[in-house]
């Protein structure tokens, strides 16, 4: 058997050996697997994957994720508030009481009406995720309900005795009712060598406010591919913050579709060192008039890290009075790190305001000298300035525990805290 055939048969085996799925999910999963069979893993010949070679994922034979216990110590930082824990993609625990008007738990049949609506099956990794749909985080906020505390979804991947790398396919579905307000935090963590293939779908009803965070802190030996798809209703307000720190290879997609008068804020921070590769692809689809989008992605690259930022903004013919602003800033700390940044503006309406800008820079020599001239050592000065660069994205994190936690992570990463 050729290597490719062996891998294909491994995926097929994993697919057929899944535990039986709920009847309502069977058709969707079969269609998804068939779709994945047609496309296979993307190659660098495809525009969307030009700078991210997933061959290391494609050529690895992964075993199906097995249930495992979550180590309490690993989960400790996520203890506050409503929390759902998934281990290897499988539902493990719900830690606390859910406020009235909110459902937060494992997938139920009720979700069938929403599942796959945002994600579709065209993206190979999303199709693969759907083919392996089993448990999933399902959060529903009823009309008008305001949830004060963040709802935390923790996705942990751990070998726990299983030999060889596993593939986990975490799935999240968030249905935010009209005029509801909520904050959702997804954290991806793990140990060892594995593949996380995550899909999140968010349906924000008219007037809903959804503040979504994705914190990718996977093991440095892992692969992480994750897509967030959000569909916004009229005047809905959606903020996505994507923090990407872990994984040997990470690909984070955020796709948002706006309706009339809706607002989208996309924030991102990616830190890569050593031989890490991180790719952020965002798509903001202004489908209707009077939509506003603000995007700020910042990256810090060191060592031989490589990074990609591709920010697609689509303004459809109907979407007059669109107001869109995209910014991508990169701080490159070493000579060997590489960033590919590309705005992709496709504008079919004529009465719009769209701006974009990308920068790639080193630490400012003058600022460095200023700090040194006050007695601060060069190393400390560099880490201070690096932290300072990332600071404004960290500042936008609204839940205080998460912001504090992120600051701690940044301090560990950069050794210094300038506040």
């Amino acid at each position, binding site marked *: 058997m050729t290597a490719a055939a062996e891998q294909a048969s491994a995926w097929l085996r994993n697919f057929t050996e899944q535990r039986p799925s709920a009847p309502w999910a069977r058709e969707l999963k079969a269609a998804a697997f068939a779709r994945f069979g047609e496309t296979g893993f993307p190659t660098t010949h495809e525009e969307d994957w030009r700078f991210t070679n997933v061959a290391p994922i494609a050529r690895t034979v992964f075993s199906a994720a097995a249930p495992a216990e979550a180590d309490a110590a690993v989960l400790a930082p996520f203890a506050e508030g409503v929390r759902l824990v998934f281990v290897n993609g499988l539902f493990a625990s719900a830690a606390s009481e859910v406020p009235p008007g909110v459902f937060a738990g494992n997938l139920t049949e009720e979700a069938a009406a929403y599942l796959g609506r945002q994600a579709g099956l065209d993206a190979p990794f999303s199709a693969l995720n759907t083919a392996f749909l089993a448990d999933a985080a399902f959060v529903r906020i009823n009309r008008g309900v305001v949830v004060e505390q963040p709802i935390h979804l923790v996705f942990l991947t751990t070998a726990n005795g299983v030999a060889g790398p596993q593939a986990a396919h975490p799935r999240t579905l968030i249905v935010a009712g009209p005029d509801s307000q909520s904050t959702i935090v997804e954290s991806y963590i793990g140990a060892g060598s594995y593949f996380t293939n995550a899909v999140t779908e968010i349906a924000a009803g008219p007037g809903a406010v959804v503040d979504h965070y994705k914190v990718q802190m996977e093991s440095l030996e892992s692969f992480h591919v994750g897509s967030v798809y959000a569909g916004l209703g009229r005047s809905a307000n959606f903020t996505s913050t994507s923090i990407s720190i872990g994984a040997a290879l990470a690909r984070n997609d955020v796709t948002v579709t706006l309706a009339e008068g809706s607002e989208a804020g996309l924030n991102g921070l990616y830190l890569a060192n050593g031989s890490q590769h991180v790719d952020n692809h965002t798509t903001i689809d202004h489908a209707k008039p009077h939509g506003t989008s603000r995007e700020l992605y910042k990256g810090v690259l060191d060592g031989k890290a490589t990074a990609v930022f591709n920010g697609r903004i689509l303004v459809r013919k109907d979407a007059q009075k669109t107001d869109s602003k995209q910014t991508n800033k990169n701080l490159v700390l070493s000579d060997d790190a590489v960033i590919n940044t590309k705005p992709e503006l496709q504008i079919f309406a004529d009465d719009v305001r769209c701006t974009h800008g990308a920068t790639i820079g080193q630490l*400012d*020599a*003058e*600022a460095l*000298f*200023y*700090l*040194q*001239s*006050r*007695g*601060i*050592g*060069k190393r*400390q*000065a560099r880490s*201070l*300035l690096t*932290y*300072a*660069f*990332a*600071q*404004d994205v960290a500042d936008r994190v609204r839940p205080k525990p998460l912001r504090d936690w992120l600051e701690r992570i940044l301090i560990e990463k950069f050794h*210094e*805290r*300038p*506040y």
Partner: protein
Amino acid sequence: MALLEIRDLHAQVGGRELLKGIDLTVNAGEVHAIMGPNGSGKSTLAQVLAGRELYAVTGGQVTYQGKDLLALSPEDRAREGIFLAFQYPIEIPGISNQYFLKAALNTVRKHRGLPEFDAMDFLDYIREKVDLMKMETALLNRPVNTGFSGGEKKRNEIFQMAVLEPTLAILDETDSGLDIDALKLVASGVNLLRGPQRSMIVVTHYQRLLDYIVPDYVHVLAEGRIVKSGGKELALELEKSGYAAFGIDEVEEAVGKA
């Protein structure tokens, strides 16, 4: 022994010689004013003394407290007591003024074998200097110089100087852009630091500052050389008759700078 001894100092940037043989001796407790037309090399000299790598030193020596100053990193010069108040203080978004200053003070204290300050000690220590420089708390909490007015930036430089208590302070046009009240504040901050062990090099275009900070010596720098030195009266003469009276061509250098 002189505190600072500069001998035949040459420096260049991109192949262009900016300092063409500077000689200057500063003894403990002295205040030296350096004047000179735009583009004559005053800031270059100040930055070279503080260790800015941008400027390549191509000749000469600088001895500070008996040590080879040019061999020290910028941070070690600061720790050894050299302070440069920048002509154009840098804005550093994302680092609070207060954090920055505490980090600076602690590295300097550590170098001097003193215990580091925690947040409380630090606030106690700076209180008097905050009052002296009339620094509003808001300025302390804001990112370093970011969005500060020109005058606030200059005041912040002198505030930093007051906190770090240097042995040799180099003030590069700290008076430019200050209103008269701010000028008095800056001067009192400087004068507070004056003492038999402390020395200053004050770069300025105006006699006005020297009314408050009375120098022991005045030097005129032109085209990378000190072309005239004298007592405090020299500044007054310059003010009255301009550099042209000394045969120094101002226009060409000013154009060269633009």
